[in-house]
């Protein structure tokens, strides 16, 4: 199963005014949770839209379940459950009416599963969507996404704006879903702590570029926050880091090659395990020296 990819983007480019994804390649493994992180406006939503054929790439290929959208659009979409951060349902309809519309679209729609989630989330079927809170809308969206036995769940910022209790419940639920080994989950988030709870792999995107897809162990083995005195830094040693933050009393830097950095600096510096936020922060700052 390890070698199977549920989503593959190969050398995809997509340009808009003021933003572009360039030569973007990404593989999402089947049967795992992949968390998709990156700052605002770096291309997370664009990537998700490309995966769902809501946008067509200028060049490159997108395949889902090993199929392309040109020939298998409906087959692919039948097997995807989606959750968007924004409200995509008709505001003036009740959840029961929305279900009546959506259920007809899916061959494998399962009323029992839908009712199970509606009852689990305590959602009112007869209230209009515009009376739902942000959390209730997310629950409704999730109930719909999970009720047609989708093999792949794609979620764009599902936890943003949710209270910590429901966020935790949602993550538990997703974890439970993965007990069925055939399901895969790909979700973008700003809240990096969510990933530690549930994600098997982390995909990091920055400024339209795929920086890495790694599991937590790989991140821990390869990345480190390095802290030391300013006297250790010169042009050559600074090149060991992705970014350096200089302060009056010393420096703090991120390395993506912990072993090599250990060879260069030995015991003269401190090594700490970086958080995903550290990696995002230092990558954003990039080559520039932070003072």
């Amino acid at each position: 199963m390890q070698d199977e990819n549920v989503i593959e983007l190969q050398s995809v480019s997509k340009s808009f005014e003021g933003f572009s994804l360039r030569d973007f390649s990404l593989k999402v493994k089947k049967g795992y949770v992949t968390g998709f992180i990156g700052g605002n406006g770096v291309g997370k939503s664009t990537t998700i839209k490309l995966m769902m054929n809501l946008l067509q790439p200028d060049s490159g290929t997108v395949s889902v379940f090993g199929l392309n959208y040109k020939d298998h659009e409906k087959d692919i979409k039948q097997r995807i459950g989606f959750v968007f951060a924004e409200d995509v349902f008709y505001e003036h309809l009740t959840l029961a009416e929305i279900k009546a519309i959506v259920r007809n679209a899916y061959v494998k729609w399962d009323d029992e599963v839908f009712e199970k989630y509606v009852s689990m989330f305590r959602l009112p079927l007869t209230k209009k969507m515009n009376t739902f809170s942000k959390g209730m809308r997310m629950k409704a969206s999730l109930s719909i996404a999970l009720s047609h036995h989708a093999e792949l769940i794609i979620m764009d910022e599902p936890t943003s704006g949710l209270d910590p209790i429901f966020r935790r419940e949602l993550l538990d639920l997703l974890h439970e879903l993965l007990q069925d080994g055939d399901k895969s989950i790909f979700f973008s988030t700003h809240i990096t702590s969510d990933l530690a709870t549930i994600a098997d792999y982390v995909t990091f995107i920055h400024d339209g570029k795929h920086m890495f897809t790694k599991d937590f162990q790989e991140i821990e083995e390869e990345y480190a926050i390095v802290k030391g005195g300013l006297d250790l830094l010169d042009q050559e040693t600074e090149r060991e880091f992705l970014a350096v933050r200089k302060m009056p009393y010393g420096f703090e830097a991120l390395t993506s090659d912990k072993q090599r950095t250990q060879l260069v600096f030995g015991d003269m510096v401190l090594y700490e395990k970086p958080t995903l936020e550290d990696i995002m922060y230092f990558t954003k700052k990039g080559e520039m020296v932070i003072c």
Partner: protein
Amino acid sequence: MNLIRKDIILLKKTMLVLLAILCVYLLLDFSSIWVGILCSIVISMSAFTLDEKTSIHLLLNSLPYTRKEIVSSKYVVAVFFTILIAVTTYIGTVIIHGEMLAWKEPLFIVAVVMAILSFVFPFCYKFKSHYLMMAGIGLVALYLLTVTFVIQDLNDRIRWFVKLLLNSNSTAEYIIIGVSVILLYIGSGVVSLRIYKQKWL
């Protein structure tokens, strides 16, 4: 088919209200043809504008539908609602006034609505429907200029043309008009699809 069912679910209340309005106008003895055309355009445009928000396009395109199905459903739904209104107009006139309309009148309603929507739908796919008001104002201005300066008896000519059409007994003429309208409508669908395929969501 599912997308057509969706529009019927979404517009069932609007449709009932419109049918009631249609009956009121028929009671007041307004021209059944023009009332039928107006109601058909209103309901067809309602079906269009309900799905016009970007978030709804996001939903529809994430569901297992192709863009071709999404666009063509709008064209099919418009014909469905127009036929429903034309039939209601026909039956309403029989019940309210005790008169049998010529069979050509409901067909005339359907043909005029299809011809108008053939231009309106691609426009709305390209520019969004709220620009339709501006285009409408432009057309009214053009109409007024034409009536004032170019063809002063334009209204009479339109009336004469409509009468001529409805009184004609030539089957060939009806077939030519019918086929032309259908071809125009299909052509419009192809243009709309081409526009919609280029859209970013």
